[in-house]
């Protein structure tokens, strides 16, 4: 922990994102601390919920019988991300920490990126911004130190937000718990900060509350390629049904914001309503009410609405887990 807390040091999980970014000099940790031999690799399920160790591999989590049975939304989302090889390497904690795939962040040839080089401006806002954010972004112009329209690339995070998961962290000041929905940040005025993890803190696990959506959930991922591609838009939808009426809903979107985007507006619009297309369209409109597109990603607003409707429709039909 002390080594990992040293200035500029980073913990190494699967390395699928960190090692990749180090090869191009985007990440330059002063030291890497390999934590793969310290345990934290179990999934423990009970009636009241589940605890997932930070070092549980994405493939093991997705195929864990208790997760498949009680949280199929999480399995579905995990298996929608990356490739089988990468899922065998990637960890739960590492997935929470993965960086944006914004081209201007990842390519050192672009000088302007407020996330990589704070204060340098944003190359994406007036650049090729097809994969970028439509909700919660900071747009004060390309030259501003605050501007950032990067998106969080994870599929797992979107499902965890819809499920109401919490992140357990340990640090120099002890242990604390952060809801996943509050773990990632919007860019605000500090786009270089992705999460609310404090220096020296280590993610030790994720907890899931008692399963509400085991029977009715769906993960829909719209992308440029059918497999092994990041989301243009993704939707994690969970419905708790009482007959034909929606008792409660969990709804989150990926690929649209700097963080996995939970839509409380959509969840509230669905509660107590019949599970039909009209309810789903209202929820979709509520979820995207504040959306703003750019030159290359304006299509995402309508795409996201369609995805919300389709994911909710599939969720209502039920999953055969």
């Amino acid at each position, binding site marked *: *922990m*002390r*080594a*990992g807390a040293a200035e*500029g*040091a*980073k913990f*190494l999980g*699967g*390395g*699928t994102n960190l*090692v*990749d970014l*180090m*090869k191009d*000099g985007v*990440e*330059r*940790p*002063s*030291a*890497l*601390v*390999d*934590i*793969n*031999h*310290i*345990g*934290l*690799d*179990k999934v*423990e399920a009970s009636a009241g919920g589940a*605890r997932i*160790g930070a070092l549980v591999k994405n*493939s093991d989590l997705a*195929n864990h019988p208790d997760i*498949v049975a009680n949280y*199929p939304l999480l*399995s*579905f989302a995990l*298996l*929608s991300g*990356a*490739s*089988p*090889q*990468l899922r*065998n*390497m990637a960890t739960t904690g590492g997935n929470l920490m993965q960086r944006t795939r914004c081209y201007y962040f990842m390519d050192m040839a672009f000088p302007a990126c407020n996330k990589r080089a704070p204060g340098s401006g944003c190359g994406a806002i007036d650049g090729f911004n097809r994969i970028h954010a439509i909700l919660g972004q900071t747009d004060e112009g390309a030259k501003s130190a605050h501007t950032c329209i990067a998106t969080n690339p994870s599929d797992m995070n979107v499902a965890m937000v819809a499920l109401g998961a919490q992140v357990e962290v*340990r640090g120099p000041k002890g242990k604390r718990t952060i809801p996943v929905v509050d773990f990632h940040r919007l860019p605000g005025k500090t786009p270089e900060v992705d999460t609310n993890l404090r220096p020296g803190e280590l993610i*030790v*696990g994720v907890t899931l509350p008692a399963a509400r959506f085991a029977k009715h959930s769906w*993960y829909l*991922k719209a992308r440029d390629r059918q*497999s*092994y591609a990041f989301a243009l838009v993704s939707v994690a939808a969970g419905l708790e049904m009482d007959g034909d009426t929606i008792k409660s809903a969990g709804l989150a979107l990926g690929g649209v914001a700097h963080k996995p985007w939970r839509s409380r507006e959509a969840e509230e619009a669905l509660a107590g309503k019949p599970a039909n297309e009209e309810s789903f369209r209202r929820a979709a409109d509520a979820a995207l009410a504040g959306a703003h597109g750019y030159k290359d990603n304006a299509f995402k607003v309508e795409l996201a609405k369609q995805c919300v409707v389709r994911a909710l429709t599939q969720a209502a039909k039920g*999953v*055969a*887990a």
Partner: protein
Amino acid sequence: MNRCSEDELPDETSEVSRDEMEMTRREFVVASTVVSASVAMGWSPEAAAEEVRRGDPAAAAKMVPISISINKQQRKLTVDTRTSLLDLLREHLDLTGSKKGCDHGQCGACTVLLDGRRVNSCLTLAVAAQGAEVTTIEGLGTPENLSAAQSAFLEHDGFQCGYCTPGQICSATAVVEEARRGDLSTVSFATGQTTKPPITDDEIRERMSGNICRCGAYPNIVAAVRELTARSANGGAA
């Protein structure tokens, strides 16, 4: 770059709790000793240049002894902490079957089996593979005694130039094992087959999607994997 000085550390590194969702303070300290034992230096061109300028090029590279089993042969090696498993195989051990395509975990040409699971060796640090059992294309079969996957790729002409083939075959070998134990894919969920899903062509395409073939030999690769998974499902050897 080891920021834990020796006198801060207890010496019983073998007592690390393996299931410590609840770590005690003491376990935390013990855990950190293991951590420090595998501290790897990051890439820092400036720092490296500074070390070289000071006339000590060796200091720029932190060399660490590792023990690793490769194709059932136990190796004791000293590696630069920045070495990828792929570079260790190709540049240090002359096992050039595993290929470097993109070197960024996107193409799958470097796929090897690490403790029986397929991984991208280009994104695996050699020091992080300490103690692991690695199987490369060279360890799957021999020219006289090909593995089932190697035979199937030959039989179905599952390649053209051959550059991606070692990674494809390692991946296909893992697909058979994953299917045998009932692992799921996103196709399994999309089709509602979440209990021991049948390995359809759509399943094969999804499960092999981490291996790119620039020649486009995909139909024949699918045919090879179809034969392998069907044979395995019927109780035959993979």
